[in-house]
């Protein structure tokens, strides 16, 4: 990122640290994580020790009170770890399941759940999607019924990242079915409570992360585990989605850039009809064209980060960046796989993995259609 936004010596030194972590800890074990189907918990502890898990959060809970420019640097480097699943697992913890807690949680709740999350001693997951409600977030049915000082929770969440390794879920549940958008709450639910059951799901990509279906059967948690006000869950989750979408743009783009570089190298080395594949005009046009799109995606992502740092409403641009970066990632993956020939179809090839991994971004964190629908509304249509 050749950009003023990330040009201070602190950003650079921080980038070095994340790059070293990625290069020494994540990359060498990338395929091991695929085989295991999840990253190991020790990674989170190591990241916590380095101060990587609470960049924007309050110092009181172990955070660093920095802005999104540092988060962007971190995910730009983590996105190069050669395992999009692991990268997603980490970013779910840092940018998808904890922002609401950090912003709206009570001091007691933050001491109990945010501080260990920042230290890397506990791992979080975000539980919104249900078998019958994904894009239509307001359609979730998981019910939390108040019984004195406790919520009694029943329902099923699905496609939940970190399902097995998570210590707790940031759950979106219906607390008042008659209150419309004011009837949802975000509740922290520990994974080890009686009545919580996790079934792992088998995915076509993102092998390094554990995705599961979670059943809640008469699960009891204190009402004090509610994040923010009771009944504000839907609105708080919409805000939390902003961080989720931006991080998806950043890691997706970083992975695409790595793949582009690796493909260029491949084409330079691959000999066809007596000359390198890279010398064929078709190859050159394709790679040049992809490069143009990568630059545009980066510029758009940076524009969002700039708005986030300035504290202005970034909703419109975040939505736009999400749509655009997904398109670019999928295109880069498809074209790079093609340039790899038969090898690109192998699971061991970076291009083949990117082909299945990049596909997720068009569905998760707000599908392309959801994003366009949302953007159209913001554009006054």
């Amino acid at each position, binding site marked *: 990122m050749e950009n003023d936004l990330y040009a201070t010596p602190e950003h650079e030194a921080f980038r070095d640290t994340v790059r070293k972590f990625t290069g020494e800890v994540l990359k060498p074990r990338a395929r091991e994580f695929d085989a295991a189907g999840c990253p190991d918990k020790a990674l989170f502890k190591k990241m916590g020790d380095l*101060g990587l898990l609470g960049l924007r959060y309050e110092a009181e809970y172990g955070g*660093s009170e920095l802005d999104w420019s540092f988060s962007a640097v971190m995910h730009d480097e983590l996105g190069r770890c050669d395992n999009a699943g692991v990268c997603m697992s980490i970013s779910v913890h840092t940018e998808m399941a904890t922002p609401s807690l950090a912003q709206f949680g009570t001091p007691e709740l933050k001491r109990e759940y945010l501080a260990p999350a920042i230290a890397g001693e506990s791992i979080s997951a975000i539980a919104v999607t249900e078998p019958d409600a994904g894009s239509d977030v307001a359609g979730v049915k998981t019910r939390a019924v108040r019984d004195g000082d406790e919520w009694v929770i029943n329902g099923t969440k699905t496609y939940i990242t970190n399902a097995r390794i998570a210590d707790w879920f940031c759950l979106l549940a219906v607390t008042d079915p008659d209150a419309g958008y004011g009837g949802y709450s975000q509740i922290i639910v520990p994974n080890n409570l009686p009545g919580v059951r996790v079934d792992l799901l088998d995915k076509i990509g993102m092998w390094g992360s554990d995705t599961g279906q979670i059943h809640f059967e008469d699960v009891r948690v204190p009402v004090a585990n509610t994040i923010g006000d009771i009944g504000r869950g839907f609105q708080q989750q919409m805000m939390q989605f902003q961080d989720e979408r931006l991080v998806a743009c950043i890691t997706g783009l970083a992975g695409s850039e790595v793949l582009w570089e690796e493909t260029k190298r491949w084409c330079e080395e691959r000999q066809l009809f007596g000359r390198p594949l890279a010398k064929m005009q078709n190859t050159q046009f394709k790679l040049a064209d992809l490069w143009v799109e990568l630059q545009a995606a980066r510029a758009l992502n940076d524009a969002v980060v700039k708005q986030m740092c300035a504290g202005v409403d970034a909703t419109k641009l975040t939505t736009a960046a999400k749509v655009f970066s997904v398109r670019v990632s999928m295109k880069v993956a498809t074209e790079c796989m093609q340039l790899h020939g038969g090898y690109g179809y192998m699971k061991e090839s970076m291009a083949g993995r990117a082909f299945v991994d990049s596909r997720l971004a068009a569905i998760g964190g707000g599908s392309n259609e959801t994003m366009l629908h949302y953007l159209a509304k913001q554009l006054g249509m």
Partner: protein
Amino acid sequence: MKVMVCLKQVPHQDARLDVNADGTWIQDGNIKFEINSYDTYALEEALKIKDAGEADVVVVSIGPDRVTQALRTALGMGADRAIHVKDDDADLSDTLGCAKILAAIAKEENPDIVFTGFMSDDGNFSAVAPMLAELLDLPSATGVLSVEVGDSLKCERELEGGALEVVELPKPCLAAIQTGANQVRYASLKGIMQAKKKPVDVKTMADLGVSDAGAGAVKAKIEKVYVPPKGDSAEILSGSTDEIVGQLVTKIKELGVL
């Protein structure tokens, strides 16, 4: 105790290297840089001494603006102060010139121990450390794998064929550290933020009173940098895996390299 660590910033190990237009060095305008790997081990040795007790660790680097980043990283890892020799002419020095500049700093700083890397990833000279020791008239050891600090510095050195040697250097002294000597720590985010307040002194050769380094004093000049032409002496072995291994063993025996 004061420990001085000499750091060089070199092209990142993942950087794509192309020879520059006049064939005298690489194109370094648009690539990433990092601290020379050997020097990170040297810095780690210094920081271990600091962790174990009282030590003031000062890191020193010669180079253009971009070197600030290496120094900031070193401060983020735990070094106390940095000295940046920022002088276009100093950058043109040969190994002896660099050693003279570093010696001038060491004379001002009077460290008990000077650590350097055993060599640099880019130049591979292994020359600056012994030259620096000589200019400072310090006892020194190279290829050092571990150190033990007491009244003296005990250095375990790596020799040919996996043998080890222990030498004891009276302080003040210099040790050039080998890679793999230790587990190099990371600059934590907290460390990086604290480093903001740590001083970086910027100096020129004139500030240090050095006149016999830089372009004018170069004795060893790089004539040419090039990628070796592809030879046609390669032989591709074919057959089943077992056959290939058999042929390979025969070849190795024939060549008598084992």
